[in-house]
């Protein structure tokens, strides 16, 4: 379960306590050279060794593992149920559907440390349950309010009522007049045809609904998953200056991204591929890397030099070649209503799978101040620090007498990359924004362990804990 940050944390804690490597390695029964490899993140650890190290350092195992796999821990916290907030009086009424957190599950880090495999199973099942719950909610909402379903069901029940009554008459009235018998036979024939038509109509309708709603991933997730596998760099869409076969390349890639998905997935994939190609045509990776080298991690300066919108530069910084200086960044886009349109996930900075993200993210602050670039040092509940750059800009051409269609973009860079020489440019100055106090943010209110956060949505913690 460990990733690169675990070693950093062990080293940091050891040095804070003034313990030498040889001493700590002796206490936990490993060689100093092995501990050295661990501390330099060249060996993954978990289970007993992580517990022994935590014990020897006098810290909770979770404090070594948090941030190492923040997304996993965040999912486990969510699976455990709403956090207890002892400062709040229990709310009356309006209890949430989710049960209160069971005693003994306050520290998911211990579970991750002791049973990393099981922790992943629990997290995967929790995600699956959340997806199923969403589907059930959507379907029951449809059953209750969908006019097409209501009409079809009414038709079926009416036809069944007629068939039942008529068949019963024919069965229980042996002396029925031949004229009545003929009329009832005709009615049965008519009702059976009506039932068949309505049943076919319902099947088609449910098929369409299944494609729409019971695919457990939103259309964007399939595309995001493809991009993650490609490490968010698509050489086939990078401009080679010829623009030859541009549309064909976009279409080919969009079809690969959408894979077996339906029309909606393909539409999302085309939109993403087309924008990538357009961004790539505006700023080639070489030019961007040279500008990054000159200015360091100063997207506004880079945008100024290259004469491009800041949002485009943020997107391009998130799809540089994987071997380049910004190989680990996050990117998130939202529309004017705050709905997440795209996510490039970053380890240690969880982004919600469903629903709204943390309202404190600069992504949302940017929406209230279009065109104004925002930069903020952020800290996750797990202690991971990232530098975020955000801007909201109108999407598409300006139009008279129409509200602007805004889209906000946020690039998230881990602290270690923001401090790396590559990010400092030729003058060796760290990017602005790193020197201020970090703003505590979360992934979403649903999983955030900050009970007194002023941005927490009303009704969540209090109601859930009642």
């Amino acid at each position: 379960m460990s990733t690169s940050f675990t070693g950093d944390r062990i080293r940091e804690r050891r040095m804070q306590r003034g313990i030498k490597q040889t001493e700590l390695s002796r206490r936990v029964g490993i060689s100093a050279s092995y501990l050295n490899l661990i501390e330099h993140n060249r060996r993954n650890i978990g289970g007993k060794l992580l517990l022994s190290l935590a014990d020897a350092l006098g810290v909770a195992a979770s404090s070594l593992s948090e941030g190492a796999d923040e997304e996993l821990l965040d999912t486990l916290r969510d699976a455990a149920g709403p956090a207890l907030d002892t400062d709040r009086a229990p709310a009356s009424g309006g209890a949430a559907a989710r049960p209160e957190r069971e005693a003994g599950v306050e520290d998911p880090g211990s579970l991750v440390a002791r049973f990393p495999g099981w922790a992943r199973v629990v997290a995967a099942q929790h995600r699956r349950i959340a997806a199923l719950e969403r589907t059930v909610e959507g379907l029951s909402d449809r059953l209750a309010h969908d006019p097409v379903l209501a009409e079809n069901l009414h038709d079926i029940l009416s036809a069944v009522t007629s068939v039942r009554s008529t068949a019963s008459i024919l069965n229980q009235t042996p002396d029925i007049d031949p004229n009545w018998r003929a009329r009832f036979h005709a009615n049965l024939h008519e009702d059976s045809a009506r039932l068949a038509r309505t049943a076919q109509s319902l099947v088609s309708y449910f098929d369409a609904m299944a494609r729409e709603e019971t695919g457990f991933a939103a259309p964007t997730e399939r595309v995001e998953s493809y991009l993650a596998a490609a490490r968010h760099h698509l050489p086939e869409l990078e401009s080679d200056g010829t623009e030859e076969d541009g549309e064909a390349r976009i279409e080919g890639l969009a079809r690969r991204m959408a894979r077996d998905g339906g029309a909606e997935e393909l539409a999302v994939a085309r939109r993403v591929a087309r924008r990538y190609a357009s961004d790539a045509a505006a700023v080639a990776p070489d030019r961007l890397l040279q500008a990054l080298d000159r200015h360091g991690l100063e997207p506004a300066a880079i945008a100024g030099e290259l004469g491009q919108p800041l949002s485009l530069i943020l997107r391009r910084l998130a799809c540089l070649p994987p071997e380049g200086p910004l190989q680990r960044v996050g990117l998130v886009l939202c529309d004017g209503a705050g709905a997440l349109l795209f996510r490039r996930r970053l380890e240690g900075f969880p982004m919600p799978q469903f629903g709204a993200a943390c309202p404190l993210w600069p992504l949302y602050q940017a929406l209230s101040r279009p065109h104004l670039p925002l930069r903020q040092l952020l800290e996750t509940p797990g202690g991971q620090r990232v530098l975020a750059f955000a801007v909201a800009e109108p999407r598409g051409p300006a139009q008279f007498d129409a509200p602007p269609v805004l889209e906000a973009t946020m690039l998230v860079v881990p602290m270690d990359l923001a401090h790396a020489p590559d990010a400092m440019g030729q003058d060796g100055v760290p990017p602005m924004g790193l020197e201020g106090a970090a703003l505590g943010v979360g992934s979403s209110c649903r999983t955030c362990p900050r009970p007194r956060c002023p941005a927490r949505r009303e009704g969540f913690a209090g109601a859930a804990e009642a």
Partner: protein
Amino acid sequence: MAKTVLLIEDEPNITEAMRFILQRDGWSVSIHADGATALDAVDRVRPDVVVLDVMLPNRSGFLILRDIRAARQTRDLPVLMLTAKGQEKDRALAESYGVSHFMTKPFSNQEILARLQELTQP
């Protein structure tokens, strides 16, 4: 003398089957299919009991029931309501308007005959 049932229902095949079983059971049957003029039919026919569908063209069976109960002449008229919607809220709404009995489709012929007999017992 045969008792009269007014059947307010717009599905012709259901109407035909019900007309058959009710007549065979000794009822005099009147049929009306339009919600908007259903109250006129009640005034004209002066039935012993009404079988009222909920989903009717032009006017809901719930509103027809409400008006039947609001009129002095029909305040106590037995009304058996039929619906394809068996939801609890529909039943509660019908009861709040003073329905005599509430049945969900599909129903059995014997069941509806038994309920009508019950509703018209002196």
